[in-house]
């Protein structure tokens, strides 16, 4: 599993920019960013280099950041690929809290999943024919 940085943001002007600037100034490179927003606030989910350091830097600068363990799964570029994975998880009684995709070097797609039950998720994913990516493949 990999470390995702989650940041709670109030819907105030410039907060997302300030977040990105803070990471940039610390020399931390981002690989993926997704923002879930509600009327009042947003939750930014980030895959970046040196997540532990990113977490420290953000909290020092007054952001509400946390580290979350998520699965990064290599998904083949073919019709129904992701559906097969999700069906396998569903059949095993594992719910997906959220998911998003990003591309890595070589044109491969990585699907990030947070699931409600980690215990046998990796087994289920592997048994369905998918490969779980390791931290070293995704960030420094």
């Amino acid at each position, binding site marked *: 599993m990999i470390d995702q940085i989650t940041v709670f943001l109030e819907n105030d002007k410039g907060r997302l920019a300030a977040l990105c600037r803070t990471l940039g100034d610390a020399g931390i490179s981002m690989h993926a960013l997704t923002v*879930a927003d509600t009327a009042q606030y947003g939750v930014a*989910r980030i895959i970046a280099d040196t997540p532990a350091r990113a977490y420290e830097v953000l909290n020092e600068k007054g952001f509400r950041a*946390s580290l979350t363990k998520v699965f990064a799964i290599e998904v083949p570029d073919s019709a129904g690929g992701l559906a097969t994975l999700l069906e396998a998880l569903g059949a095993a009684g594992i719910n997906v*809290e959220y998911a998003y995709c990003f591309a890595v070097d070589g044109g491969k797609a990585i699907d990030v999943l947070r699931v409600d039950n980690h215990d046998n998720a990796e087994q289920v994913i592997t048994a369905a024919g998918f490969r779980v990516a390791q931290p070293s493949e995704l960030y420094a």
Partner: protein
Amino acid sequence: MGKNSAHQVAGPELYFQPEIEKMGRLELEALQLERLKKTVQVCYEQIPFYRQALDAAGIKPADVQSLADLTRLPFTTKQDMRDAYPFNLFAIPATDERVQRLHASSGTTGNATVCGYTQNDIDVWGDTFARAIAQVGGGANSMLQVSYGYGLFTGGLGAHEGGIRIHATILPMSSGNTKRQVQMMKDFDVDILCCTPSYALLIADTAIEMGYDPANDFNVTGAILGAEPCSEGMRTEIEEKLGVKMVDIYGLSEVMGPGVSCECRYQNGLHVAEDHFIIEILNPDTLEPVPDGEWGEVVFTTLSKECSPLIRYRTRDISRIIPGECECGRTLRRMDRITGRTDDMLIIRGVNVFPNQFQEVLAGFSEVTSYYQIILTSDGPMDKVTLRVETVPEFDFDEIRKIEDLQRRINAELKSNLQVSVDVLVSEPKSIERSEGKAKRVLDNRDKS
């Protein structure tokens, strides 16, 4: 060891005046009406302020024919009392032989308010305080330590009069010299302590510092504490450290002093001495009565006071009537502990709300810190309330539904406690103002019309 029983609600209920404390409501209301008529009559005849006020309201004393007529009578405010400084609200001249004593409020924010007491006024006061002494198990064989200040302040002498009426032995310590308080409490086998909650705690801590375990080593089993707010946590601490049953007593120098209302052993509201005072709870905006159970301004009318009677005195204290009957068997209705002053009150969509009610609700949620801010804005003609809270560092906000679930639960709890719908806004850490002194908890940005 034998003191543990002091913490339990058990055994016979102890009354000082059972014929009044357990009087049927109809009989009590008849007594109130009879005394109200007399009070209005005396006010009209003896006090020019009231004659003018009643004339202006178009009411003659003879018009008071039922307790419902009370609502037609004019109010008395703290300012009226200040303006009457020193003796213009007295029904009997201050130096008349019938007047025995004067008490006065501190007057830190204006003229002091002064009240006179005849011997009967003092006896009535003593009786109401004695009811509290009986409720904590005290009686004629008690050793009563009075550690309220003696003087113009009503605490010391009010407790003292209670001791006289119940024939206890009184130790008039007044406040201060805490080590000596502890020593005498121990050496004289004091069983009942009367003082402020904070002083009771200081006495307990001083005793412990002196090497005693007052909960077990001392004979003290009852504490009658008042004149300042006391949280449930503080009550528990006092009860455990001293090994006492504590009852909260309420009173104001303008109305009488401690004893206007007092808790019984069940500690669920303060029984009002309704034979001597009529309590009303009013919406401070409309000055109309609110139903039992709803919060509002406490208004008292005195029924027995001879020297300084008051008609509908607005205390600015906020409380409510606790509906239903008390397990103790007393028929005297209960008021809740004072939650604040009208000066702090917010009126939101016509509902009276106090900032500390928000605090109490939030204290039940381990997910949020103790910092909060209430923001009032206008949404058309409606008031909109936003409550900003901060989550604790351990809170997992990665799943949005957990934040939304938290908001929903806080909202539901506020709605059921305050009858007000609130938008709960989870805020970034440390974005809510911290303050050494009084934090600005309320931002009222409503359109002023």
